[in-house]
Structures are given as C-alpha cells and as structure tokens.
C-alpha cells in the first residue's frame, strides 16, 4: 500500500503548518520535474511564482486555518525549467499524536485547463454579447415608444379625417355618403326586426331666386341657418344630412306614417316662422315615405322624391306623404 502510494496517479505532499515539505511521493516529483532530494525539506513556496504565493497567503492558509481543509484550489507550480504546471489542489490539516501538518493532493490540469480557458472566453463573449443585446434592446424600446406616440397621433388624425369625410363642410351636417350608409343599416334592421322608419326629403323653395337676388354668400347663410333649424327640430337619434345643393334628407327611426307627417309638418312651420334676416319668405317643400316590405334604399328614396315632387306641384311650402298620393 505504501509502495503503491509512491506511484499512485496523484501527486502527494505533506507540509508543516509553515509550508515546509516533509513527505512527498514520486508522482509529485515527476509532475514538476524535481528529484525527491531537491524538494524534501524545502518550502513549498520555493516552487511558486509570486502571484501563486499571494494566492496561497490570501486564500490557502486562512481557509485551512478556518476550515481545516481546502478543496479544488487551482494554482500552478514552477517546474525544473521554470515552466508553469497548472494543478488542482485538495488539502487537509491533520494531527496524529504529536505530529501535525497538512496533507496535500495534486492533480494535473493539462486538458482541463484548456476547457476552462475556453469556457472563460466563451463566458466573456457571452457577457459582451449580452451587453450589446441589452443596448440594442434599449434602443429598440426607444424606437417602439416613438412609434407608439406616432401611432396615437395617426389615430387622432384618422378620426379627424373620418369625421371630415362624412361631414358637409358648409353646414356641418352629415353628407350624402354617410346618410346612404345609415339608410342601408336601417333597411337591414327593418328586414330583421321589422323596425319601422320614415324618410323626409326637403327642398328649399325658390332657392335659385335667393342666390340670384342676394348673392351666393347670403345663399350659403340660408343653407347654414336651415341646418340649424334641422338640428334643433330633430333628436340626435334622427339622421339629418345635406343631400346636395338645397336638398336635405332626414331619417326618422321608429316613426310610422302619422308620426313622420307630424314631424315634417312641425319642420315646415318652424322654417316658415324662422327669422332669416332677408327680405324674402323662406319655405320648404317636403316629401315623406315610410319604409314598407319590399322597399330598397333606391325605392324608398324614389317614393320620398315622388312625394316631394307632389308638394312642389301643389304649390310648395307643404308636406306630402307618398301613401297619400
């Protein structure tokens, strides 16, 4: 057993608490290329570089002192030619009878140290890459925030544009496009739930004369004023729009024939008695149609138009319902 320890596949040393080598095996001698006699009774630090000595003093001795053992300490010793031999050291303090000291076992780190170096440089690369990644991420986040801000601006702009695209710029009422879409929706509702509604088409009487006599500016003023009358006469659920020129339309949800005639009559009176600030009587002719089975957007518009035509034919400033024709 003792014989075999001499050539066992690890370097063995025993040192005093002061670091003087008192026992060693052949494997250790071969590891660093010294003879048994050259190493016996010398200080272990005599085969160490100054940095390894410092490591020994700041780590090995205090740790041993504190715990009685040191595990997996990495260090290197100088071989006979002065070359570094990287080693892994386990050490343990012992006391037997009157003898005390430190048993040290060394393993060569030949290939392992290459792996370690590779791992260390890979770790450094990874850390560097991580730093760069984080920097890039920060930049990306900044960009993202900017995009978000722009998107909000864009959405606001979009809402504004949408509003503009369905609004008549002169009167501020909804335009024809908007009205036709709502009309189609109400037809669909009627087909689905049988929800009734009626349609008014109104036309300013003698509007050409207003323009010719007072000029287009006054003409525009009359149109704006009429829009105000329409807005104050109808509820918000009612859909009021300028259809084109001096022609306006109103959709009255849930209104049957009687109700729609009442509302149309109310409007006609309000227009007649409104203050127009020009020396000309302003009146409207109104045609009304109520949605019936089989009607489409085209037919109900035609029906209301026919009723309007009748109002005009019969002397203007009056209300006609299609069903009364």
């Amino acid at each position, binding site marked *: 057993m003792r014989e075999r320890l001499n050539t066992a596949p690890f370097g063995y040393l025993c040192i005093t608490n*002061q670091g003087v080598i008192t026992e060693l095996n052949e494997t250790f001698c071969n590891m660093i290329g010294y003879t048994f006699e050259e190493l016996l009774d010398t200080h272990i*630090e005599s085969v160490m*570089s*100054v*940095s*390894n*000595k*410092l*490591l*020994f*003093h*700041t*780590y090995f*001795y*205090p*740790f041993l*002192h*504190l*715990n009685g053992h*040191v*595990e*997996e*300490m*990495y*260090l*290197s010793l100088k071989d006979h030619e002065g070359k570094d031999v990287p080693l892994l050291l386990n050490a343990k303090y012992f006391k037997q009878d009157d003898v005390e000291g430190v048993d040290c076992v060394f393993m060569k780190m030949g290939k392992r140290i290459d792996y*370690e170096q590779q791992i*260390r440089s890979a770790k450094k690369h990874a850390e560097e890459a991580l730093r760069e990644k984080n920097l890039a991420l920060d930049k990306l986040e900044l960009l993202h925030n900017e995009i978000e801000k722009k998107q909000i601006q864009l959405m606001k702009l979009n809402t504004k544009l949408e509003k503009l695209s369905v609004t008549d710029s002169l009167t501020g009422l909804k335009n024809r496009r908007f009205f036709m879409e709502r009309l189609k929706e109400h037809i669909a509702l009627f087909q689905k739930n049988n929800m009734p509604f009626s349609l008014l088409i109104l036309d300013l009487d003698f509007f050409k004369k207003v323009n010719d006599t007072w000029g287009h500016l006054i003409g525009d003023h009359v149109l704006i004023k009429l829009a105000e009358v329409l807005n104050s006469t109808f509820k918000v659920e009612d859909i009021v729009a300028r259809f084109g020129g001096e022609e306006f339309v109103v959709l009255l949800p849930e209104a049957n024939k009687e109700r729609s005639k009442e509302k149309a009559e109310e409007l006609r009176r309000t227009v007649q008695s409104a203050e127009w600030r020009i020396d000309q009587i302003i009146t409207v002719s109104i045609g009304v149609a109520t949605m019936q089975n089989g009607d489409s957007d085209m037919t109900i518009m035609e029906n209301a138009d026919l009723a309007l035509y009748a109002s005009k034919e019969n002397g203007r400033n009056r209300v006609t319902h299609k069903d009364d024709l």
Partner: protein
Amino acid sequence: MTNVLARNNVKVLGEGEKTIIFGHGFGCSQSMWRLMVPFFESKFRVVLFDYVGSGKSDLTAYDPEKYNSLYGYAQDLIEIIEELELNNVIFVGHSVSSMIGMLASIKHPDYFESLIMIGPSPRYLNDEAYIGGFEVSDVTELLDLMEMNFEGWASFMSLLAMKNPEKPMLAQELEKSFTAVDAEITRQFAKVTFLSDHREDLAHSTVPTLIIQCSDDSVVPIEVGEFLHSHLKNSTFRLMEAKGHYPHLSHHEETVRLINEYLLLP
C-alpha cells in the same frame, strides 16, 4: 448623507483614551485582526472596519470610479475618523492598507499620531532599479488565479465575514450574495493595489511610522522595506523573525510585541 459607519461596517470596541484603528489588506476583511484585538482592547479604543467591497461593507456604495485608486479608500478612512470625532489616532495597516493610511495622513496629519505598517509596499511592480517583487505578467497571472478560484475564495471570504463557521447555512446565504459584481470588485481592488505607485508620496508623509516586515516575506521583497525606511521621515524599521506576509495571523504575538515596543507600552 451616506452613513459612513454602516458603509464601512465600522466596529468600535475596548476602553481607553487613545484610539487604534486597524485596516485590513487586499482579499481580507476586519476579521483578519481577530487574534490581535484582544491584546489592545484593554488599553485602547479599538476601531475595526471593512473597506467598501470587502467583508460586510455596503456593496451598493461601491463606485468603480471612486475606488479606481487608493485615494478613494483613503477618503473613506478620513470620513470614519471624522464621523467618530477622533484625533491622535494610531493606525495599523496591513499590506495595501499601509499606503491607504499614509495617503490619509498626508491629507490630515493632525488626525494621526503614528502609522504602523505591516508588510507595506509603495509599488508592487519592478521598475528599472526598483525591486517591487512583481512583473506585469505576475499581476495578470494573479487576476487569472483569482478568477479561477473565485468560487472558493468567495466562500472563504463569506465565512470570514460571518465569523460563524458553525452556522454554514448563514454563510451559504452570504455566499449567494457574492455575485459576479463582487468578482468584479475584488478584481478591481487587486488591480488598483498591485498597479499602484505611491513612491512620490513618501516624501510628503510626516507622521512617525513603524515599518514591520517579515523576514522572507513571500509577497514583498526585503528591498521594499528598506526603500520605505530610507524615504519615510521619522520611520523605524523592524524585521520580524516571522516569515510570510500575514504575521498578524501566523505570528500574532511577535507582531503585538513589536507594536507594543514601538508605542512604549509595557
């Protein structure tokens, strides 16, 4: 306002008119003085502390810019003295702490009565005729060794900091707190220490100084002690019988005796 006493984990022990402050060296903490303190507690007020980045100091106070030179550490020492309203301090510094104490004393000579340097060096690197003991390649090797052994080193320092080896759970907790940041701090402290050069400052030091050096110091060559002695006014040089670089741990009685003789204590 930073809490200086918490930042540097300052401990005040003992009785006495005079104050003795112990400053630990690189890779250590105030617990390195545990064998020495009992000899001084009865005669002095003893102040122990950890440098920021070491022991149980406040790691969040670590500023890589401030501690990129020994002046940052010297400033902290001055702040500890001011916070405790001390004067005529005897400062005992091991290794790099000797220079930190000297830099503080140059700025405020009136704070110090004497400096006791154990294993000091104004420059660890060789420089033409000057023998510091280290080549640049040695410092690189040391940084590598530290990195390769950091796990073990960290657990060792955490054990020391806890001083509770019988409670390994606590030490494990603390060990966890030794993260990559600490490796970076220890690495910078090593760099700052071993690449420092304060030979020019020696001429500005006026406080009486005792230089204690181990015979056959494993880190600092004997020439460095002699260099210091010849460049420091009012200095006394004592070569110890002890070998190594940590006489306050390995031969604390001889270390205490030399300090007592210098301070003319019985």
